[in-house]
C-alpha cells in the first residue's frame, strides 16, 4: 500500500521524466528568454574548462604550438624581438668543414679542444660555455693541456663552463674527474623538445657540486645570472617559452655559400604579405636555412690572424663552443629554421632571450602576487573575463530582442543582412577581446602567446555558442523539465 504523499511524488517524478523525454517545444522556446546571467556564465565557463583541461584530440597542444610557431615567424621574430641578445652571443662552431679543412678527424683530443679554447681566450670573451660532454675516460695524454686551459681562463678572469652528463647508466662521473677537480662550473645541458621542435627551455637542472639542493638553474639561466648581474633574474618556474628571432646574424648571411662556393641567401626575401602566405601554406619557404645566432667557424679562430668579423663577434660576447657534426645526434628543429639545427643554438637562443628580456623571459606559467599558476589554470583565469563580458553582452542582446518585438519590423532582406552583420561583428568582438586580454597578460606577467592563444579560439567558439543560443536552450530545457512554465502558459492556466 502506498501513502498519498508517496503516490504524489511518484507522479511528479513520472511527469518530470515525461517532460525530459518529450519536452514541449513551445514551452522550452518561451523559457529560453528567461535564462539568468549566472547560468550563461556557468555554461560558458564549464565548456571552456573542459576544453582546456581535457585537451580533446590534442587540440589545445596543437593550437598552442602552431600559434607559437606562426607568431615567431610573422610577428615576434621580424617585428618585436630585438637583436640585443643576438649582438652579445656567438657560437664558435666545429663542423664538418672545420674537420675537413683542419684535417683533424673527430673526436678531437683534449689538447685540440685546449687549443681552440686558448684561441678563443685571446679575443677576451665575456664567458665561454663548452657544449661538449667530457664523460668517457680515454687514453689521451693531452688531458693536462685542457686542465691548463681551464687555469688560463681562471687567471684571465673569464668564466668558463663545462656541461655534465645526465642520467648516465653506469654511474660514470658527469665530467672527467680531473677536469671536475679544477672546480670549473658544471651545467646541465638538458633542453626541452616537443615533437622534435625546441620551443621551450628548462628553468632548472641537475646540481653537480652537491650544493643548491636538488635542483639548480639550467645552463643558460646560470650563465645569465653569473654574467649579467645588472639584470636581476626574475623568479622563474617551470619552463621558458623561447622566442626565436628571425633576423639572422649578418655574419651567417655572409658565410653562407653552397657546395660550389657560390654565396647563398639564408632565406627568400619577401614582403609581409608573401611571408604571411608562406607561413600558413608553405612554411619551409618562410623559414631560414641559417641559424639565428652568429657563427664563428673554429678554424677562423685557430688561424690566429686578425679578422674584423672575428674581432667583432668574440670580445665581450658570451661564446657557446659547440659542434655540428653528422651522426652526433645533437640536432633539433626550431620554429624558424627550415633545417635541423645543432642544439648549441638552443642554449644560445635561451641566453639570447634572457638578455633581450632583461632576465624576464616569456613563460608557460604566470606568477601573480607570489603565486604561480601553471598553464591550464592560467588559461582558465584568462578566459574568465572573456566569459563575463560575452555573457553580459548576450544578456543585453536577449533583452533587446524582447523589446524589439514591440518596435517596427524591417524588411526580410534587411533583417538578413543585419543578422549576418551582427553575427560577424560578434565573432570578431570575441576574437579581439581574447586577443587583447592575452596581450595584456603577455606584457603584464610574461605569459607566452602559446599559453593564451587557445583562449582566442575558445572565445570565438563561445561567441558561436551564444549566437545559436546554446545556454538559453539548455536553460529552457532544464527549466521546463523542472516544471517551469512560460508566463503566457501560467496566465492561461
Amino acid at each position, binding site marked *: 500500500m502506498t501513502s498519498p504523499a508517496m503516490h504524489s511524488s511518484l507522479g511528479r517524478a513520472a511527469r518530470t521524466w515525461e517532460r525530459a523525454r518529450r519536452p514541449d517545444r513551445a514551452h522550452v522556446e518561451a523559457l529560453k528568454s528567461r535564462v539568468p546571467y549566472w547560468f550563461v556564465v556557468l555554461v560558458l565557463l564549464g565548456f571552456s574548462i573542459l576544453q582546456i583541461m581535457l585537451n580533446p584530440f590534442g587540440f589545445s597542444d596543437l593550437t598552442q604550438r602552431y600559434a607559437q610557431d606562426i607568431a615567431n615567424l610573422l610577428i615576434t621574430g621580424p617585428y618585436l624581438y630585438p637583436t640585443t641578445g643576438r649582438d652579445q652571443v656567438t657560437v664558435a662552431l666545429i*663542423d664538418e*668543414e672545420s674537420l675537413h*679543412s*683542419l*684535417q*683533424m678527424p*673527430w*673526436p678531437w*683530443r683534449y*689538447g*685540440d679542444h685546449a*687549443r681552440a679554447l*686558448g*684561441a678563443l681566450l*685571446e679575443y677576451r670573451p665575456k664567458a665561454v660555455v663548452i657544449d661538449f660532454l667530457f*664523460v*668517457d*675516460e*680515454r*687514453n689521451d*695524454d*693531452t688531458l*693536462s*693541456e685542457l686542465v*691548463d686551459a681551464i687555469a*688560463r681562463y681562471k687567471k684571465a678572469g673569464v668564466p668558463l663552463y663545462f656541461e655534465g652528463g645526465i642520467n648516465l647508466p*653506469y*654511474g*660514470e662521473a658527469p665530467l672527467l674527474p680531473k677536469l671536475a677537480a679544477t672546480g670549473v662550473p658544471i651545467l646541465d645541458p638538458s633542453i626541452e623538445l616537443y615533437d622534435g621542435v625546441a620551443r621551450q627551455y628548462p628553468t632548472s637542472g641537475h646540481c653537480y657540486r652537491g650544493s643548491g639542493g636538488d635542483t639548480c638553474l639550467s645552463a643558460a639561466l646560470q650563465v645569465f645570472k653569473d654574467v649579467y648581474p645588472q639584470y636581476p633574474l626574475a623568479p622563474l618556474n617551470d619552463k621558458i617559452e623561447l622566442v626565436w628571432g628571425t633576423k639572422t646574424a649578418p655574419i*651567417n648571411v655572409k*658565410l*653562407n*655559400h653552397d*657546395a660550389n662556393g657560390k654565396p*647563398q641567401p*639564408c632565406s627568400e626575401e619577401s614582403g609581409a604579405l608573401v611571408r604571411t602566405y608562406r607561413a600558413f601554406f608553405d612554411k619551409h619557404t618562410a623559414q631560414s*636555412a*641559417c*641559424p639565428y645566432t652568429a*657563427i664563428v*667557424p673554429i*678554424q*677562423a*679562430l*685557430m*688561424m*690566429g*690572424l686578425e679578422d674584423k668579423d672575428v674581432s667583432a663577434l668574440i670580445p665581450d660576447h658570451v661564446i657557446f663552443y659547440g659542434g*655540428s*657534426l*653528422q*651522426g*652526433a*645526434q645533437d*640536432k633539433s628543429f626550431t620554429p624558424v629554421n*627550415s*633545417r*635541423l*639545427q*645543432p642544439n648549441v643554438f638552443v642554449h644560445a637562443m635561451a641566453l639570447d632571450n634572457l638578455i633581450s628580456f632583461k632576465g624576464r623571459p616569456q613563460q608557460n606559467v604566470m606568477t601573480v602576487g607570489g603565486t604561480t599558476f601553471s598553464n591550464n589554470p592560467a588559461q582558465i583565469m584568462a578566459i574568465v573575463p572573456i566569459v563575463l563580458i560575452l555573457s553580459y553582452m548576450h544578456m543585453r542582446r536577449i533583452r533587446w530582442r524582447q523589446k524589439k518585438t514591440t518596435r517596427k519590423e524591417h524588411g526580410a532582406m534587411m533583417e538578413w543582412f543585419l543578422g549576418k552583420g551582427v553575427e560577424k561583428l560578434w565573432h570578431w568582438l570575441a576574437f579581439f577581446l581574447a586577443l587583447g586580454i592575452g596581450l595584456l597578460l603577455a606584457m603584464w606577467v610574461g605569459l607566452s602567446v602559446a599559453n593564451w592563444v587557445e583562449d582566442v579560439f575558445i572565445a570565438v567558439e563561445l561567441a558561436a555558442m551564444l549566437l545559436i543560443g546554446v545556454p538559453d536552450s539548455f536553460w529552457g530545457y532544464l527549466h521546463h523539465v523542472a516544471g517551469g512554465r512560460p508566463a503566457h502558459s501560467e496566465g492561461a492556466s
Partner: protein
Amino acid sequence: MKRLLLITLVAGAASFCALPALAADSNECSSLSGDAVLSARTPQVDLYDAPNGKRIKSVDQDKFPKCLAVTQRAPNMMLQVSVDGAVVWVPPHMVNYRLTGKKPAICRNLAMGGNDTKVGATRALGEDCPQKVGAP
C-alpha cells in the same frame, strides 16, 4: 673645455709614441722573407712536437725568441719553427706572425641539416665503450 683639450693632447701624444712600437714587430723581421713568427702574443707560448702532437713545453712571453722563419704550415694552421735549435710547432693564435700569400677564405654551407630527414646513425667516435663501474 680645457680639460677636454688636455685629454686630447695627452691621448694624441701617447698614440704618436706607441706607433713605432706597434710597427716594430713587422719592421724588425724585414730581413726574413716568407712566412715568419714575429713574436709571442700570449703570456705563454706552447710548443708541440707535431701538428697534431703533444705539448712539449710552454715558454714565457719574454723568453720566446723573435723573428722565426716558418718552415712549414700544417693544415690545422700549426706553424713549424726552430726554437733553440729544436724543430717545434706553435699554435698560430699564440704568436704574432706574418703570412705571405692569400689568407684562406672561410665560407660555409649553413643550410646544414635536412629539412625532413635526419641521420639515422651514430657517429663512431673511436672511443672505448664505457666500462661499468666495478666491472672487471
